[in-house]
């Protein structure tokens, strides 16, 4: 302990020293005394990473024949996608039985909802699909759903297999872990271009990128679940004479059911979030429509599509979460087959009944252009009228004029002013004081790589958006969390809100941002900020609620007042959990800032989005890695701090 303490102070002093050095460098720069090479890396020193990567990719692609392999796979995948496309929206491909009448699908969804979670979920699931049909978005929604029905099972199968493998073999586990953490911080746009190059533009590439993006959490949850199986259940299995395969099939996987299903939930949600974004590489569906509508500033229609996406997301999330907690029920001996399989029978009856009905009543099969209830135009006028109200106008104008001009832009310029060398040192000092030596070394290496990439200014602008948004998000989110944690009722409400907001595909966060602030920096910050506020608020509540009641009672008996309790007992103990929330907020922000490129930014996201149009794989990866490296630096530093703090507080 003593050794540890002295270590801390040594690290602390070193961090202060490094920060001071960085400050001196900045001052020197301000007085024009810093050599130019330390201000920005000389262009000629930037290694041609993009060219090297391109060469490597070309080698793998052509010489090693990966392209042949992937193009072969494309064939199979295309067949699957075509089949599901046929079933869901009647694309003219094998098996030529679709499309399913919308009423039949909505009915079946309602039955599934009822089975998993009673009437409320039945209404939610059925209602979502009825809404989709009624507002005339059935076909585009089904385009999205048809990709999901291929991508989700694929990601599940690959994820669970790799998860089992990593659990069985220590070596695979150690090899996979760093890859997974890089994969989880790589911006989604980086997945898109290789997918396009290897799997053709359109649904196949979209499905591949989506699948790959959704695999990591499945792997992690599978390994976690298998590791958590109680040893006595394992021993009971062995003593029952299970072979290895029987152990896996009958003992481990069923006993890890909860974690595996949580993994499934995450796969579904990630797939949905991603499949919407694949609009950027020409995947038809809800995402593409939203992109088009936002591009032409049709806010009413955008809002309607946004609502559909959100409804689909909430439905899928609630259904799969209900499945997680759904426990098998026992039937008394002699219960009839029909009673035992009630849901299944009901679903079949509803499906067949409505499908037959749709043959005669056309409106049940398809709701035409003229028949739908879309109120896009009206909404549009209303939104524009709302934005025209003087007060709203004043507020948004103030935010744009004052906040943007006086706060955000100066902050950005300040960050850009700091010499590269000083910037890296600041980050290293931060990592050293918070995370420790190891994290400091990573920070130094990672940020130096970013400097070497030649995209320094754009990286700093990216970082600026992230920091500004997370800062504002914590000013808003943390007090909200503290307030909500004060009462059971409000914690529940706000947590439910966070839960729901977290299921929204990131793309829809752009809608209110653009609506309120148009195409400005503020809109970018705003969309990141609402996205990042969710984990901040959530973990603040969870951290505060998890403080052991004995400690609060002890503080009460020591005569601590409300604020004293908060400052001296509750907040310090909640800090490690809040740090995880903070970390997630930063990760979310890095994710969102890239997507916000759609609004028009000058950062890495913009460049990344531009590469999608070409075949510039090397540049695409360099940009992607810049984002990932910055994100990883924060991720490792903050998580290491939270871990250390938890240990010290004995919270594990």
């Amino acid at each position, binding site marked *: 302990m003593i050794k540890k303490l002295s270590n801390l102070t040594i690290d602390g002093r070193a961090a202060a020293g490094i920060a001071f050095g960085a400050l001196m460098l900045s001052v020197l720069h301000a007085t024009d005394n810093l050599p130019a090479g330390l201000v920005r890396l000389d262009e000629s020193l930037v290694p041609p990473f993009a060219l090297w990567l391109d060469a490597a990719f070309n080698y793998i692609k052509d010489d090693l024949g990966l392209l042949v392999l992937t193009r072969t796979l494309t064939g199979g995948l295309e067949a699957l996608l075509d089949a599901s496309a046929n079933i869901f929206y009647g694309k003219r491909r094998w098996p030529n039985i679709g499309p399913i009448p919308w009423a039949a699908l909505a009915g079946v969804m309602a039955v599934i909802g009822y089975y998993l979670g009673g009437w409320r979920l039945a209404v939610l699931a059925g209602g979502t699909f009825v809404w989709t049909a009624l507002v005339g978005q059935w076909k585009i929604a089904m385009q999205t759903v048809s990709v999901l029905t291929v991508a989700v099972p694929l990601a599940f199968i690959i994820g669970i297999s790799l998860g089992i493998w990593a659990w069985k073999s220590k070596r695979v586990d150690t090899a996979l872990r760093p890859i997974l953490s890089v994969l989880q911080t790589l911006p989604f746009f980086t997945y898109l271009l290789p997918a396009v190059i290897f799997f053709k533009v359109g649904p196949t590439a979209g499905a591949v990128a989506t699948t790959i993006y959704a695999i990591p959490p499945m792997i992690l949850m599978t390994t976690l679940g298998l590791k958590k199986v109680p040893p*006595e259940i394992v021993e009971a299995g062995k003593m029952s004479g299970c072979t290895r395969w029987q152990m896996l099939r009958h003992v481990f996987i069923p006993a890890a059911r909860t974690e595996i299903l949580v993994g499934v939930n995450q796969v579904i949600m990630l797939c949905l979030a991603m499949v919407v974004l694949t609009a950027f590489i020409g995947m038809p569906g809800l995402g593409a429509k939203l992109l088009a509508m936002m591009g032409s500033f049709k806010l009413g229609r955008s809002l309607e599509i946004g609502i559909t996406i959100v409804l689909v997301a909430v439905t899928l999330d609630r259904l799969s979460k209900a499945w997680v907690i759904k426990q*098998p029920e026992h039937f008394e001996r002699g219960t009839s087959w029909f009673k035992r399989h009630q849901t299944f029978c009901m679903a079949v009856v509803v499906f067949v009944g409505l499908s037959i009905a749709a043959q005669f009543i056309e409106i049940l099969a398809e709701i035409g252009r003229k028949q739908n209830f879309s109120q896009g135009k009206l909404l549009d006028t209303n939104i524009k009228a709302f934005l025209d109200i003087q007060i709203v106008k004043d507020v948004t104008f103030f935010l744009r004029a004052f906040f943007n001009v006086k706060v955000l832009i100066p902050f950005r310029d300040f960050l850009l002013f700091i010499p590269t060398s000083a910037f890296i040192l600041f980050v290293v000092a931060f990592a050293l004081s918070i995370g420790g030596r190891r994290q400091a070394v990573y920070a130094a290496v990672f940020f130096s790589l970013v400097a070497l990439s030649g995209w320094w200014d754009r990286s700093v602008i990216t970082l600026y958006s992230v920091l500004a948004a997370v800062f504002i998000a914590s000013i808003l989110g943390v007090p909200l969390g503290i307030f909500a944690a004060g009462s059971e009722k409000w914690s529940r409400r706000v947590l439910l809100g966070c839960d729901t907001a977290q299921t929204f595909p990131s793309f829809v966060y752009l809608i209110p941002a653009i609506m309120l602030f148009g195409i400005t920096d503020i809109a970018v910050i705003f969309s990141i900020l609402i996205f990042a506020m969710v984990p901040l608020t959530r973990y603040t509540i969870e951290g505060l609620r998890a403080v052991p009641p004995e400690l609060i009672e002890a503080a009460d008996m020591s005569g601590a007042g409300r604020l004293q309790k908060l400052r001296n007992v509750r907040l310090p103990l909640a800090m490690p959990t809040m740090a995880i929330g903070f970390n997630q907020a930063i990760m979310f922000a890095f994710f969102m800032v890239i997507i916000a490129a759609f609004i028009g930014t000058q950062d890495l996201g913009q460049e990344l989005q531009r590469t999608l149009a070409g075949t510039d794989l090397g540049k695409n990866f360099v940009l992607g890695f810049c984002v990932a490296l910055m994100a990883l630096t924060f991720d490792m530093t903050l998580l290491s701090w939270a871990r250390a703090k938890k240990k010290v507080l004995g919270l594990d």
Partner: protein
Amino acid sequence: MTKIPVISCKNVWKIFGPNPEKYLAGMPATHSYDDIRSDGYIAGVKDVTLDVVPGEILVIMGLSGSGKSTLVRCFSRLHTITSGVIEIEGQDITRLAEKDLIALRREKMGMVFQSFGLLPHRTVLENVAFPLEMRGQDKHERIERAMEVVKLVGLEGREDYFPRELSGGQQQRVGIARSLAIEPDIWFLDEPFSALDPLIRREMQDEFLRLQEILGKTIVFITHDFDEAIRLADRIAIMKDGAVEQCDAPDRIVLNPATDYVRKFTEDIDKARVVKAAALARKTATGSGTPVDGKQTLRALAPALVRDTRDIIPVQAKGKVIGGMKRTDALEILLSN
């Protein structure tokens, strides 16, 4: 004893650590548990030699961390031992191939766990039938057999419930039923009643004795509760730091503790409830008059002993007088607590 042991272990060691075989080979024989620990290894089982004879209940006793659970897991090879020999019915199990080991477990062994180890996704009946299913028994047959065992443990009517719908005592009945489904010869019970309330525990002990009356298995029973041990045991093995301190019949452990540790362990026990007349019988003087039953505890004999005026009271077993018990010896034990 003349019977061939069912389980026989000789100089069994189980050491946990980075490289146990190599460490044990190079370790001086005089190393104590603490010496081993300061080298970064844990002696789970330390040089244990022990036989279990057919039909007996051997209770392994000790505090937590004493190695009792480890030892029983060595018997079933859930742990592979570091050195020594363990024979089950004459067959050295440390050398069995995986296939044969699985066969051995499928045919001969049953085990009950402290926290039940039930599969949460299977009903009572499916849990009980699980070992039968694993060995590929036909569905109809295994359901029939599982029902039989479910009835035996008194869970009839609950066979379609899931474990979470049962109380702790009922869950352990399922665990017991599952371990008995394959009709094992050897029955391991690892603190089966420790997780239960005292009242239920008592009831389950009675249930256990009832079952053993019917089944007559060879049993290795683990507990940290000395009262439970003397209630159930034919013999008790007391463990400390991985080693067996003493292995003997309960009354002999109480009367002649082999080590200070055992003495301390048995100090608070009401000896009169453990010691039976037979243990005090000496062949040198048989005394005269009506003999007392050697199987009775001194506590049970207390009223008679107080009234009896003989100095030496004959003790009989199976209708034959086996020796005489000094009344003063008996009274001393009776009054010692």
